[in-house]
């Protein structure tokens, strides 16, 4: 393509010269021949000039055109572009020497790989993007041992992820310095999650349903046997049976909703939720129960309908509901439960110490911390939770030793559900509590004030849970008065 125009440029000049020579041969010595020659020269120069200008404007491809065999179709994309479009991470790794452990380079990474493992666009060292020993080993085997295989690895974090990596050697030309290997990774989190969930669900359900079921069968036997004709006993037993069946129902419901939440935990929520509105709904639904117990509820925060979070509304409602339920269970008669909502908080503000004597623990922390959070804090004046029990609070079916939750027995899943919901929203959860000092004679065992500050006078016990949801941005432009730390 590039060579042809150049020939054409000189065509008019050559033609002109030929005509001139022909004329000169036909009539030698003619005076007008000079004028004809000048004319032909001028015309051919003009044509050449314009041809050159045109040539300058046409783009000459400076790269070697891609041979057709590399393209999927003559008019289609190249294979690199096809690889880039694959949803699973695909990488090509090069290596030179087996003992040069840090010399593995990513020479190609598709879009999915760049996103999943934070690889720089131009590639980079393999070990700084993927430092999992199993994968590095498999890549080495593919590079220098010509072995094709797959390995499973796990990336931990707030949301655990499971991956499967396939490695296979790629052919290189004979005598080449570099060796190449293909690394294809697939996200198997969903599959592993379903597997684990099924096992967990079966184990939990069978274990936890056994107790109420045993008591039901016991009562049925009694009713069939010697309590057959005892009307009073029958009534009493039927009441107990009803409440046990009710508990079983609630347990199944909680287990199912926990499973559902866990299943979607790695999928960030979409949708809008207004925490203030959620909290007001919860207050309304709990008010009768609270009145029966003689507990008052107080809600403070911004009015509903102003601030919206990117969140699953039902799940946010459930967080507030479960935390308030929990508070209501342990709140003594005549006390107040505070539900507070704050906007524009940083995590430091949200978990900052309010009471230096209080035990506090962050039960859940996001992998990537956002700038601003909306905080819901539910505080009850119950007996408090001792420091040593805090880390296990969000464990399923965990019950703090010696704590009575009253007649309405919970399922032991409330806080686990809260934790998983907040994790799905990439938020944070913390607890802070002041409890009566333990009966354990710590003083003899722990001769310094590191663990428990000795109480001076009667302690005001409380438990407060702090749930943080990430905000899309800061709501107020002007600096806020700050987080209310005083209780």
């Amino acid at each position, binding site marked *: 393509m590039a060579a042809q125009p150049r020939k054409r440029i000189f065509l008019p000049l050559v033609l002109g010269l030929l005509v001139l020579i022909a004329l000169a041969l036909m009539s030698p010595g003619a005076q007008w021949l000079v004028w004809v020659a000048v004319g032909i020269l001028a015309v051919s120069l003009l044509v050449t000039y314009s041809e050159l200008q045109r040539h300058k404007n046409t783009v000459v491809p400076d790269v070697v055109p891609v041979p057709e065999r590399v393209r999927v179709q003559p008019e289609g994309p190249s294979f690199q572009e096809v690889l880039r479009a694959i949803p699973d991470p695909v990488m090509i790794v090069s290596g030179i020497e087996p003992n040069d452990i*840090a010399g593995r380079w990513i020479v190609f990474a598709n879009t999915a790989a760049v996103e999943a493992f934070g690889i720089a666009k131009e590639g980079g060292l393999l070990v700084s993007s993927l430092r999992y020993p*199993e994968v*590095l080993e498999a890549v080495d085997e593919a590079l220098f041992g010509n072995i094709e295989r797959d390995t499973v690895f796990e990336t*931990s974090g707030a949301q655990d992820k499971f991956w499967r990596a396939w490695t296979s050697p790629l052919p290189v030309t004979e005598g080449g310095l570099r060796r190449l290997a293909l690394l294809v990774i697939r996200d198997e989190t969903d599959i592993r999650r379903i597997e684990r969930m099924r096992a967990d669900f079966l184990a939990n359900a069978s274990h936890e349903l056994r107790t109420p079921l045993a008591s039901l069968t016991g009562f049925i036997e009694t009713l069939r046997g010697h309590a057959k004709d005892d009307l009073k006993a029958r009534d009493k037993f039927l009441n107990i049976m009803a409440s046990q069946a009710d508990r079983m129902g609630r347990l199944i419901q909680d287990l199912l909703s926990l499973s559902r939440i866990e299943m979607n935990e790695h999928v960030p929520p979409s949708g809008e939720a207004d925490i203030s509105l959620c909290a007001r709904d919860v207050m309304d639904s709990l008010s009768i129960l609270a009145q029966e117990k003689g507990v008052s509820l107080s809600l403070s925060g911004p009015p509903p309908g102003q601030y919206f979070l990117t969140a699953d509304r039902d799940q946010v409602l459930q967080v507030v509901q479960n935390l308030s339920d929990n508070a209501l269970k342990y709140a003594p008669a005549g006390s107040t439960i505070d539900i507070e909502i704050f906007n524009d908080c940083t995590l430091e503000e949200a978990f900052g110490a309010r009471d230096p004597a209080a035990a506090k623990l962050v039960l859940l922390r996001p992998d990537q911390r956002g700038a601003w959070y909306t905080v819901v804090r539910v505080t009850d004046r119950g007996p408090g939770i001792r420091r040593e029990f805090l880390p296990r609070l969000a464990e399923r079916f965990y019950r703090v030793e010696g704590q009575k939750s009253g007649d309405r027995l919970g399922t032991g899943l409330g806080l686990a559900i809260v934790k998983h919901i907040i994790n799905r929203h990439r938020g944070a959860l913390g607890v802070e509590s002041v409890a009566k000092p333990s009966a354990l004679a710590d003083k003899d065992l722990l001769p310094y004030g590191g663990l428990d500050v000795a109480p001076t006078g009667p302690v005001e016990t409380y438990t407060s849970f702090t749930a943080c949801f990430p905000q899309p941005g800061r709501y107020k432009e002007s600096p806020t008065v700050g987080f209310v730390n005083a209780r």
Partner: protein
Amino acid sequence: MNNHIVRTYGEELDQLSAEVMLMGGLAEAQVADAVEAVARRDVALAQSVIERDRKLDELERDVERKCIRLIALRQPMAADLRKTVAAMKIATSLERTGDLAKNIAKRSLVIAEAEPMSPLTRSIERMGKLVSSRLRDVLDAYKSGKLDMAMAVWSSDTEVDEHYNALFRELLTYMMGDPRTISACTHILFMAKNLERIGDHATNMAEHIHYEITGEDYVDDRPKMSTL
């Protein structure tokens, strides 16, 4: 074509941090596997953790050798010097982390023979996960050279302490309740202590990263709870 590779100074420095990353990946896996061996009573996994520790030791020696070579031959200045020194120090911390993980694996062999104490091993698992995430964060900070990320690890060490203290108390009640569990509980206590020290190593590494990036020592008082 010859197989001789000429490395430039920059490549040598890159190689150094790449090797530290490799060590980091290995140390992370060691800690995670050791904790899993405890939780699942997996003797084979514990054995492999114990065996793999040698590789970490080897790597540390290698990094150290390379650093000394680099200092002697290239006489690095300013940022390059800090990078070299930080690599050496972080490698040492990672090697210590590996040793502690190996110790946990060794103790898990003893625990596996005793009666299962799932609430306690679950606490170890939880603490292990927390410490692993610290380690991961600090290595990510090293990789990307993000100072704020490293400092976030540095300032959140009290959480690990809190877990350690809780477990300590739990163990006390266990041992008081049933003296037959004392032997196993003591091993679990040491495991918790090891994990707590791995957390400390993570904060140390955060300090080294601070030094590498800014050239200044981090001398602020670390928020730390007193633990036994």
